[in-house]
């Protein structure tokens, strides 16, 4: 078995164990809370019979492990139960709201990589210069405010005072685009509607940037410190003593070994974005998982909460597996050795 396949198998296995743990944790938290979830879901006007019927349906009278057993049985059929808030299957709700959130996160993730990494490289190459200090202050500011503060400030400056970007929403109402992937920037292209694509892209810039700022900061700071460390390595001195061009040393010889630890953090930042997207979506009225998530949490909608958390965690684990594979791809030491650490 090639090492990469072995690595993939091992990671998938661990992730599955962790995912089962997540489901148990969130399931337990959801069931041990004070108050009767059925009563809360139905409201004070429901009759005792209605509440009892719902308790029956949710198996709330059974012991916790048995409830969890029912949950797993349904899960294996791809069924996360009915949302008490929308009265629809939780999977249908998530399928409806998730793509918008994912699109936002993917764009923000791209911004994080395309802006954060070069900033880190520049800061390291011109260590101690004004550029280095400027990058340091910018990146520190990026991680120092929650994304909703950046969202509000960006909106105030670039949507209100300088009306360069739209204030809210995902696309102008005048465009009707058939949903294929759920990613408007892709669906508009599939539809061949360039104007709509431009409009969707125009809408996503500010929220995605607000969401990516802390990730940009993390990625740039880490890349800088890794690059600085790599610059002290003998193979860089060797490259210099052979007179390789300095640009080439930065881009080729120093960057790639430095990228390996940065990638791990980028994976974690993706995870943080899955949470922070809630904040940014709230500011920009982005029709994603946020409003649904907050609504179901406030209504103690058990199935929806468990389902949403589970899906988000699964995505997090997936991103981490992808990152691990990327690292294996970049770092031959992992690709060729038996130990994958």
């Amino acid at each position, binding site marked *: 078995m090639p090492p990469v396949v072995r690595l993939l198998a091992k990671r998938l296995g661990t992730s599955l164990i962790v995912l089962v*743990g997540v489901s148990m*944790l969130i399931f337990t*938290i959801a069931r041990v809370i004070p108050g009767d979830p059925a009563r809360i879901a139905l409201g004070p006007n429901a009759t005792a019979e209605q509440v009892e019927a719902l308790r029956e349906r949710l198996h709330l009278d059974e012991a916790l492990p048995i409830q969890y057993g029912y949950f797993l049985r349904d899960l294996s059929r791809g069924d996360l139960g009915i949302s008490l808030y929308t009265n629809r299957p939780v999977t249908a709700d998530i399928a409806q709201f998730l793509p918008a959130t994912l699109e936002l996160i993917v764009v923000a993730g791209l911004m994080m990589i395309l802006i954060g990494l070069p900033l880190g490289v520049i800061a390291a190459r011109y260590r101690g210069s004004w550029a280095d200090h400027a990058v340091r202050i910018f990146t*520190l500011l990026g991680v120092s405010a929650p994304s909703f503060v950046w969202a509000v400030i960006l909106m*105030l400056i670039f949507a209100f005072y300088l009306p360069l970007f739209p204030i809210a929403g995902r696309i102008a109402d005048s465009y009707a685009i058939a949903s294929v992937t759920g990613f408007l920037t892709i669906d508009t292209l599939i539809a061949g509607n360039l104007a709509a694509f431009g409009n969707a892209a125009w809408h996503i810039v500010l929220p995605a940037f607000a969401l990516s700022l802390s990730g940009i900061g993390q990625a740039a700071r880490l890349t800088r410190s890794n690059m600085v460390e790599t610059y002290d390595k003998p193979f860089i001195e060797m490259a210099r003593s052979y007179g390789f061009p300095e640009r080439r040393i930065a881009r080729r010889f120093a960057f790639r070994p430095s990228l390996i630890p940065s990638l791990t953090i980028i994976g974690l930042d993706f*995870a943080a974005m899955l*949470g922070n997207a809630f904040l940014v979506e*709230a500011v920009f009225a982005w029709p994603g998982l946020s409003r649904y998530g907050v609504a179901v949490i406030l209504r103690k909608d058990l199935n929806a909460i468990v389902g949403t958390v589970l899906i988000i965690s699964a995505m997090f684990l997936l991103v981490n597996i992808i990152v691990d594979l990327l690292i294996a791809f970049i770092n031959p030491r992992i690709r060729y050795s038996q130990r994958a650490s």
Partner: protein
Amino acid sequence: MKRAAYILVRNPLSLTGVILITLVVFGALFADFIAPFPEHRGAVVDFANFNKPPEWPYLFGTDLVGRDLFSRILYAYRISLLLGAVVLAIAVPVGVTIGLVAGYIGGWTEYVLMRITDVFLSIPPLVLAMSMMGLLEPTLTNGMLAVTAMWWPWYTRLVYNLTRSEKEEGYVLAAEVIGASRTHIIFREILPNCVPSIVTKMTLDLGFVILIASSLSFLGLGVQPPTPDLGSMVADGAKYLPDSWWLTVFPGLAILVAVFGFNLLGDALRDILGVDQ
């Protein structure tokens, strides 16, 4: 000490951090004396002066029921700092102990403890805290509980990695050779060597706890009114953009200043204590 002072003075950013945090902590501690309108921390209404832009005596303007934003920000700092201190006071000992034990003892103990840690780490921090807050009642105590629940695994992860490398060091082997007990080795030999990293992370985290707590209350899942809170102030004000900009901008900047200050301070500590990233 001299070296510490030198590092602080040489780097203007570190000095900025010290000043910012001194101001924030001072303002929070002595809010009763500094705040022009101490009574505005609670449910006070002054419709004669509602929604005023920044003008004397309202340094940062007033909110929609006429309360002085500057006074409320000072009291919000007090609660944020208290929350941060309590969260770390619980999360750090718990996380550190689990990390030490898992890292030193190894085997099945390590596997089980670290997988449990992974479970907590694989739920995005904000999502875990949100779910807990939503399911419990949104009070200050529960807020502390929710944030603590998401915070300890980071210390476990940090200390676990440190322990694994310290374990191979000569001084630990030496202690094992002379037959020191596990407890002695873990807490007397390994732990002191992890302290610089832990202290640095705690300083940075005081800022990040404030950040996460404000995010929770921004979503309406945090401390409830009338208790002043930076996150809910931003959320309430966001509906009145751009006209009543001060309602969001000042509380937002207040979060930024505190977190930025703790970040600078943490970076300075990292230099002083010589901690690797």
